[in-house]
């Protein structure tokens, strides 16, 4: 599950300050920081001497003062690309595998001007070729006959969507679709009891929280926030309103992601004590506030309305009257981001890559948005220090400290790590769910020529460099590929367009050796220049192709902090 859709907007402002964000030094537990050769083909690729010399692209900045992570991207030869960073980043491979950093043909980027057709008719190297996109109805893909990897099992792939869990289930039961995303929490049992269907639970690499903004009284008072932390019965919410596989959050970090602190527990549920403190602080009696949310179903919050009402009821039990306000998704995220929500707000976060920086720095780092009001400098310092280190053993205690500080400051109340699932017809071989929400349809074999998949929503565009929505990313994953990819059903990086990569000792120079003989859907050959160009148009804010759908390139900025030639921030 990629970042919550349009969480991008949060990120934009968040990164605009472009201060720390220690994403740079993140280390996934699964990723030893040392150069990691990824097997299949052992031969590094020497430039082919017989070929006509091609013009090799390269981009760089003169100095790292611009605030970003990247220093240079160079095509060393036709099949080798070197990335030079301004500072060590052990998480670089994980980032390079992200859907937002997929490789597009350099010529096609030029031809489309970085927008327009690029958004509608992408050309990639992936297992499927987009055949037709009937807007508002379905998206049809055909198998790529020249795919470098294993041939897709189904000749035709169809993406459909419905926001209603009931409709998705009915379509699955009736056999109209082979697989669905996010069955409703109450439908888990229905699916498991149906011999024709199979459920594939997705681990909760996400967090649902109740946010508070410390610039609005009484939330400016730490004791008050701590009191509210005691007033919410999180166990009751998870037990009653979440599907199986969900767990009560004890901290912001989900347990399966590096940075989680074992043994740390949240405040004990104690409404009497909470009420006593609130009365002592003069908040009660008579405190009225709001609970704002968007009516959008996500893995971390499968039933927003129900959960909001339960929180409202719990608050009423201690004498706090909270009015529920439902906002449109985009407006809600913008308001949260700008720090305009003066009551409680319900939001969550899903992992983009498995590292603490993806969770903590985004929300609580120095460059974080105004979502929780003014930040906490002691927390900033710890996070910055943790991000500057590369040794997991040294970082972990710092994240323990950070998680404890978050518990002390209570910028938000972590409630749940929501389990979700995909469900497929039982006959489907290779069906799976991806913890990052990027299921690979090519490996699924339902014994039919056409595989029909139904998800929550229509993809927004098919140029994922400028998207943030998980539903959109899943579609891009079928068509385009990045240098690296994630193993099916896990968060481990595996080779994709790059066969292997290596880094220098201080993790600032990463060399990727590309797969040879790969062709794009239009028949053109994949080479190092495509990689450089695909990255460059995102990196360089002044590049004529730096357009996309809206031009935010949120993920690029989130990962690498700052664009080259970034316009002065407002």
């Amino acid at each position: 599950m990629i970042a919550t859709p349009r969480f991008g907007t949060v990120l934009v402002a968040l990164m605009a300050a472009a201060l720390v964000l220690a994403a740079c030094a993140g280390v996934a537990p699964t990723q030893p920081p040392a150069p990691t050769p990824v097997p299949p083909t052992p031969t590094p690729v020497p430039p082919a001497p017989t070929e006509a010399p091609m013009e090799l692209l390269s981009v760089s900045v003169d100095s790292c003062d611009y605030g970003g992570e990247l220093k240079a991207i160079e095509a060393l030869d036709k099949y080798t690309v070197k990335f030079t960073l301004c500072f060590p980043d052990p998480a670089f491979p994980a980032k390079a595998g992200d859907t937002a950093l997929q490789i597009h043909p350099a010529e096609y980027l030029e031809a489309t001007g970085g927008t327009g057709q690029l958004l509608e008719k992408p050309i990639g190297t992936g297992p499927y070729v987009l055949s037709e996109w009937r807007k508002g109805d379905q998206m049809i893909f055909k198998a790529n006959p020249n795919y470098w990897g294993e041939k897709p099992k189904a000749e035709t792939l169809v993406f459909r969507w419905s926001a209603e869990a009931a409709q998705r289930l009915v379509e699955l039961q009736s056999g109209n679709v082979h697989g669905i995303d996010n069955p409703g929490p109450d439908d888990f049992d229905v699916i498991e009891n149906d011999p024709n269907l199979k459920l594939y639970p997705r681990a909760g690499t996400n967090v649902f929280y109740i946010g508070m903004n410390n610039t609005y009284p009484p939330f400016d008072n730490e004791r008050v926030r701590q009191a509210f932390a005691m007033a919410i019965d999180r166990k009751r919410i998870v037990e009653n309103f979440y599907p199986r596989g969900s767990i009560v959050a004890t901290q912001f970090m989900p347990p399966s992601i590096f940075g989680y602190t074992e043994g740390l527990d949240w405040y004990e549920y104690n409404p009497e004590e909470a009420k006593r403190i609130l009365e002592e602080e003069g908040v009660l009696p008579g405190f009225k506030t709001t609970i704002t949310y968007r009516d959008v179903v996500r893995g971390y919050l499968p039933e927003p309305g129900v959960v909001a009402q339960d929180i409202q009821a719990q608050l009423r039990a201690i004498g706090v009257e909270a009015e529920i306000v439902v906002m449109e998704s985009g407006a809600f995220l913008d308001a949260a981001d700008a720090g305009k929500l003066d009551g409680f707000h319900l939001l969550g976060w899903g992992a983009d890559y498995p590292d603490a920086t993806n969770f903590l720095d985004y929300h609580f780092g120095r460059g974080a948005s105004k979502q929780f009001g003014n930040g906490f400098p002691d927390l900033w310092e710890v996070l910055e220090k943790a991000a500057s280190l590369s040794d997991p053993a040294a970082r972990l205690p710092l994240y323990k400290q950070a998680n404890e500080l978050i518990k002390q400051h209570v910028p938000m109340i972590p409630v749940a790590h929501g389990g979700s699932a995909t469900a497929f017809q039982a006959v489907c071989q290779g069906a799976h769910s991806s913890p990052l929400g990027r299921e690979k349809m090519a490996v699924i074999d339902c014994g039919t020529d056409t595989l029909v998949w139904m998800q929550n929503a229509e993809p927004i565009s098919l140029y994922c460099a400028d998207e943030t929505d998980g539903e959109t990313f899943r579609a891009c994953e079928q068509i385009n590929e990045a240098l690296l990819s994630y193993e099916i059903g896990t968060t481990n990086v595996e080779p994709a367009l790059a066969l292997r990569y290596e880094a220098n000792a201080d993790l600032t120079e990463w060399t990727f050796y590309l797969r040879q003989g790969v062709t794009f859907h239009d028949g053109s050959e994949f080479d190092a220049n495509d990689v450089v160009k695909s990255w460059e148009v995102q990196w360089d804010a002044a590049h004529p192709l730096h357009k996309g759908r809206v031009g935010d390139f949120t993920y690029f900025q989130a990962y690498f902090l700052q664009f080259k030639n970034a316009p002065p921030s407002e």
Partner: protein
Amino acid sequence: MLSQPRTVAPVDLVVPARRSRGLWYETAHALLRRRSGQIGLILIGFLVLVAIFAPQLATHDPLQVLIDVEPNARRRTPPCIHAANNLPAWPLIRSFQCDPTMPQHLFGIDGNVRDLYSRVLYGARVSLRVGFYVVFVALVSGTLIGSISGYVGGRVDNILMRLMDIVLAFPSLILAIAINSALLQALDTSLLKAIIVGLRQVLGFEDVGLLTALMAVSLVSIPTFARLARASVLSIKEQEYVMAARALGASHSRILLRAILPNAMAPLIVAATLGVASAILDTAALSFLGLGARPPTPEWGAMIGAERNQMFTAPHLIIFPGLAIILTVLGFNLLGDGLRDALDPRMKNR
């Protein structure tokens, strides 16, 4: 028209009294003789009683979450009536039977572990009040606009009626959605704030969403009444007794209020009754879409909207509020039909 300086002798300007027991008596009599009128009255009477005595009839607090309050209360459990266990297991009865260790809930438990029966009962309060308030606002302003327009005529008529035409040109629900969204956007403005505070005091609704929905639905209902009122006024103002009143020097307001409007009321009453039904339906639709009542207000449309995904796993959550809406709308439609027949002089004594 010249104003008469002389005082006018008190003449009864209203319809000359016939040998009858009065218009209202006759109408009521005619209404009760018709099947549609009877059923409509019974349904509405029943609903009004339910609304008034909701606190007595309800088994639970409609807002109370029963987690940790009642043992075995699981969310979205279907209806459970222990007494039904003694009855034969016919399909309809069977769906109310349950394990005697489970707590009794006539309509089952909703998604937030609240008693659905109590919520549906309290929903009657919300919906009936919404229906009446909307129609009251629309009727009063519609009649005012329509009668002025019809009575004054000319440019005023033209302007007012074109305005009404504009409103009528939109599908009412879509216009209501637009107006409601605009109102919700403008909630911060001081004028709207003041209106909301005032409405809260007068109507006793706490729910801001419901109040804006009420305003939106009222606004889109006005043209129907304005049109009707204007048509009636146009036909009546040419009648002899109105001429007579005019000749006798009655003021405009007196002619309009005492001579014309009382006789123009019949179609308006029918429209108002039918209007209650559509107002309830429109408000429920807005709430279903999440634009009306805000949780936890027990509004039928909102209840259905919140649980629409449980159509197959917990159908009781849709069926009972749905039935309530159907019965209410049916009741007002039947009554309106009956009234139309009863108030129509041509239908007399048939």
